[in-house]
């Protein structure tokens, strides 16, 4: 029997701890960089929304025809910016979902970013609604407005609904899809929930497609039928 190499046992333990700490630091550093990148993107989108909102306010007050006519330079610019914001919000949502998988649902930085994202969604939704109403743009299959309210935690129906919304996004690039956590007690989200047409007794998950409340859809065809019925 050979003697126990205590020094080697301790040295290996220290090296293992150092390696663990190193891996944790590298991983944390990369995630901080990614979180910062998402924050920058959110800021950029917020600036875009503010710019579009300011332009809409000015044009609504003074140049109604220019806002609604996409052939004019101001109208074309507003439409392009709105489409660009929608695309950016979609991209951001993918990144936030990915980060949630990486950092876990309880990460405080991520929680702030998600709230900020919800706020931008609400602002974008309001802006789009303003443009739609002001310019009297009819609801259409190519440009549906979809609000999706999901509950906190695990939800079997939400998994299927998530896939359906992803497919809708691909098939209807002009669709405006906004997702909100129904149980988020933040005043901005709760104000949206308090508005018609959501009945007080409705429990999540549910959707509002072009102003009509629906329970989660069983499949893609059902949701497409709902979009087409309102055309």
């Amino acid at each position, binding site marked *: 029997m*050979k003697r126990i190499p205590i020094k080697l046992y301790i040295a290996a333990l220290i090296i293992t701890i150092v390696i663990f700490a190193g*891996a*944790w630091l*590298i*991983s944390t550093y990369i995630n901080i960089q990614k979180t910062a990148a998402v924050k920058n993107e959110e800021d950029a989108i917020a600036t875009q929304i503010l710019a579009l909102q300011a332009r809409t306010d000015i044009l609504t007050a003074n140049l109604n025809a220019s806002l609604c006519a996409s052939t004019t330079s101001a109208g074309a610019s507003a439409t392009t910016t709105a489409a660009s914001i929608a695309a950016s919000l979609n991209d951001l949502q993918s*990144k936030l979902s990915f980060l949630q998988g*990486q950092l876990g*649902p309880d990460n405080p930085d991520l929680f702030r970013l998600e709230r900020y994202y919800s706020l931008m969604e609400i602002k974008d939704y309001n802006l789009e609604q303003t443009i739609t109403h002001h310019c009297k743009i009819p609801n259409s299959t190519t440009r549906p407005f979809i609000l999706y309210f999901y509950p*906190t935690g695990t939800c079997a129906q939400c998994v299927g609904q998530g896939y359906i919304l992803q497919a809708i996004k691909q098939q209807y690039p002009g669709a405006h899809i906004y997702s909100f956590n129904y149980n988020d007690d933040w005043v901005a989200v709760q104000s949206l929930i308090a508005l018609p047409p959501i009945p007080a007794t409705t429990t999540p998950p549910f959707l509002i497609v072009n102003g009509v409340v629906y329970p989660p859809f069983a499949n893609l065809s059902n949701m497409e039928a709902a979009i087409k019925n309102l055309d």
Partner: protein
Amino acid sequence: MPYFAILKSTFMNTVQTVILYVFLFVGLYFQTFILGTYLVNRRKIRARTRAHAAADERSYPSVTIAVPCYNEEATVGKTIESLLRLEYPAGKLRVSVIDDGSQDNTWQVIQKYQERYPGIVAAHRKENGGKYTALNYAIQHTTTDIIGCLDADSFVEPNALKRMIPYFGDWQTSLGTRPHMTAAVTPAMKIYRPRTFAQVVQRVEYLIGIFIRKVQSLIGAIYVTPGPFSLFRRDLFTHIGLFRHAHNTEDMEMAFRIQSKHLHIENAHDAVVYTTGPDTVKKLYKQRVRWTSGFLMNLRDYHWILLRPRYGNMAMFTAPLGLALILSAVISVALLLYRFGVMVWQWSVRLETIGFTFSPWHWNWFFVSTPAYLLLTVLIYALMIGIVIEAHALSGERSRFSPSIFLYFFTFPLMAPFWLIKSVYNAARSRTPSWQRERAVAPSTSRTAL
């Protein structure tokens, strides 16, 4: 309800994360320790190898190699011939072949060798009683200083014996007269001509085993004296007794007993022995169930040495770590199955809701996953590649990188948990896997690292 759901989900995630990181820590600590031990002793290993090469062969002890066989007519001849090619002083080497009641032509084959090589090859025949009885038969009919064993499906390099003998050191001094004397020497085992998938992955596994066993010998923590060509001092058996049934893992029990008596087991990393590995996954599974069940049941029999420093590094390192690795594999499989179940359910929901549609994929560095556990896993695999390359050099081969390493890395961890789970079940129910049943599909009884 949602708050309960959050708590439940958070708890499950936390439990999974803690388990994952505990196992990664154990795995990384094991690798760091063995690599550290090897690097600290590398010069000593080389110096000792050179000294052994210069040893005076005239002072070598007499040796008998016992070859227990049961229905080995196809391979025993080749095994004997490899022993006859051993480079060893004339008149000091005997080969004792014991037919353990074979039902094929094994007896006729070994008789021919006895007739052709009288005085060197001795053929014995007895009623079937299992491998350990055949070994004990040979020991009781032998008077040489050293006794070795070689499974009848294994073959030795001509210089293997010559390289192993010097590790016994002062073999003329009676065992027990000085503390910590070397009682046994084990070789470096390799897979003989790997052809099938199962054999190719075993080849890599055995290479890693060469490295680990060398390090285990450096700290006195070897837990098995494998069937392919382990050598023992003759007086060891009068000192601690003969081989036992030991849940069909007599070579493991012998190592446990040697260690518990404060004797030492050496490893000759450059003495190469080739063994025929199971050629199918099914045979491999059966072999590994027997080995691992044996390890667990022998550990239960010798539980009193566990974590007691007076029994050295085997009690403090090898045995607890072996248990931890088995436990980690079993729990990992449970987690993996859970994850797999979730994935299957998600796919079925996807199919049910949107059918067969595929999202376009665009590369974006943002979506590259970089959790700490992934970085640590990559590091552990990188260290294992280093170990395989160093093991080549250690066993006298040119250091090289082989793509089969990746085949091993990606398939072995998926297969191993199945035999580990079965072994834990066997050990819990004290069920000894049938040696005969295993031999019905796999002739090999040799073993390497768990």
